[in-house]
């Protein structure tokens, strides 16, 4: 059951982005999409609206970049509850640290190992 929900929720979240790309005025690049999703995820998370989506869709809500924004927001909130103002600054990044570091390290490795293919 969770696999089906992951598929449906994940797919639907992506379709929103596709509609944004196809129907809005030109100039929406992947960069815009990435920023939009991470910010929207953080905002919805802060309003308590993203967790229900995660409960329902599991990875379907966690894997899209809005899920990353959700981790950032929840990390900041937990940080603030535990450490006050220090937590506001360190909480978000700590929660996302694994993913970001992985991206940098694997990016560097891929650059070492692979060349762009034509």
């Amino acid at each position: 059951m969770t696999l089906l929900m992951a598929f449906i929720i994940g797919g639907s979240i992506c379709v929103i982005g596709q509609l944004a790309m196809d129907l809005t005025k030109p100039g929406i690049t992947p960069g815009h999409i990435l920023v939009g999703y991470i910010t929207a995820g953080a905002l919805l998370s802060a309003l308590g609206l993203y967790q229900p989506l995660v409960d329902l869709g599991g990875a379907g809500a966690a894997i899209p970049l809005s899920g990353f924004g959700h981790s950032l927001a929840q990390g900041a909130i937990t940080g603030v509850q535990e450490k006050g103002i220090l937590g506001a600054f360190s909480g978000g990044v700590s929660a996302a640290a694994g993913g970001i570091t992985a991206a940098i390290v694997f990016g560097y490795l891929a650059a070492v190992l692979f060349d762009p293919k034509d």
Partner: protein
Amino acid sequence: MINMDNNEKLKSAQQEEYHHLVNRVKPKPPVVKNCLWAFVVGGLICVIGQIILNYLLSIGLNKQDAGSLDAIIMVFLGALFTGLGVYDDLGQKAGAGSIVPITGFANAIVAPAMEFKREGYIFGVGAKIFSIAGPTLVFGFVASVLIGLIKLWTIN
């Protein structure tokens, strides 16, 4: 003075007319086909993430750590397929279905890293690695700090 105003008006009227012409002639993207591809590919990538997550939970990791490790593994997969040169082909078909999942974030970091290797590791790879995904981190961090500060203010 009045002539300049009239010229401006004429120019913008002409531009508006041309804009309508362009919109009429320009082929529209196949929205339904694109959305179907985005739905299916995005959904499948999430399913892969769910399978990995289920496995990590089954071997005893707590929810937090399982989620983190799941993200790391998906980033690895996105990086791998970018390195192998297939992620861009997927992107052409799947559009948002490949950009939105965290694998797309990995692709946006790995692609410029690979591309600019020819300019060296410091000023090529090092400097350009965040050229596309940088804004994501900036806005993500700013949003998280703001949310933290607002939460702090509402607690007190």
